[in-house]
């Protein structure tokens, strides 16, 4: 699984290197290719959206309206024994790369819990996918509306 991801990373680097012509270096670095949610799911989970099983065991805590997309607090917990879980994946649908993070758990964690602050490019769903050791993919989503602020 990991080696496959590494491979993909290398592949990506390769593509960038191939497109390098003088003058476009910056651009190639600055604008990684946009990726759809489906593509990100495929890369990280080898799955499609329809493989995800919606589950109310996963709880996502995030603001409904975000006053800044740069700093959205996300707390994820799940009511499943941690030793049955392989990893937690977080995706944000509308980001240029929807994959946000992967958390690999161990029984020492005691509970399935993870919290962080993430960037959201615009209003979109934040998804949590739990990859269980038996291969099932449990998922939950919460929409966060991103707004602008300030008196300009």
């Amino acid at each position, binding site marked *: 699984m990991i080696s496959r991801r590494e491979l993909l990373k290398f592949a990506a680097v390769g593509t960038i290197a191939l497109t390098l012509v003088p003058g476009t270096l910056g651009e190639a670095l600055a604008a990684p290719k946009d990726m759809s949610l489906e593509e990100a799911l495929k890369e990280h989970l080898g799955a499609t959206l329809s493989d995800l099983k919606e589950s109310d065991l996963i709880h996502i805590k995030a603001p409904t*309206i975000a*006053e800044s997309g740069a700093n959205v607090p996300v707390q994820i917990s799940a009511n499943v024994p941690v030793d049955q879980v392989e990893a937690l994946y977080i995706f944000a649908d509308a980001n240029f790369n929807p994959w946000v993070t992967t958390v690999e758990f161990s029984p020492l964690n005691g509970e399935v819990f993870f919290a962080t602050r993430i960037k959201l490019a615009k209003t979109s769903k934040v998804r949590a996918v739990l990859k269980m050791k038996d291969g099932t993919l449990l998922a939950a989503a919460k929409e966060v*509306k991103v*707004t*602008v602020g*300030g*008196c*300009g």
Partner: protein
Amino acid sequence: MKSAVVAVAFLAGIGLLAGCQPAAQKAAAPKEKKVEPKKAEKKKKKSATERFRTALANQDKWQKACSNPNQLVPEGIDVETFRKEMLATVKFPPGGVLGKDVKRGEKLFGDPKKGGRSRRGNCYACHCGDPQILACGNIGPSLRGYGKRGIDPKDTYIKIYNSWAVVPCSVMPRLGYHGVLTPEEIADIVAYMHDPNSPLNK
């Protein structure tokens, strides 16, 4: 020292009032590209302190009148005179108060592509309007359905150009008076606000 500052502020204010007309007209020509001679600027580079002091001294006499803890017209100043003097500063665009470029009006009001952002109009900072724009302030009244309220577009124009001609010392900036928006730009905003197809009125 203090009275001197006040006097300077007062004079500067009068100067500003007197100078308003040509300034507004200059701003009215949108594509005028007049490059000021740079030599004069280079000669003396003012210190930040000097620049800020000058900026504060630009306070006009009406701003000075409103600079009290209530931020309202103080006693001793006649509101009607205040209003009339403000009304006299309003310049109308040759094409009338309903502009032609509704799209530009929308952008100045608050660009829906940027979540309602617009540095110059920035109406959403204080008003709600287009239901798509969630981040809207509640300092001013909601402008939803504004075009259906039977308000004369000329009154809308005056309110935006110089809100103090309607309500002296209002918190709403006098956007046309100070040249933040040109008469044409205000007319486009008015057109956007009164357009039956505008998201405000749908």
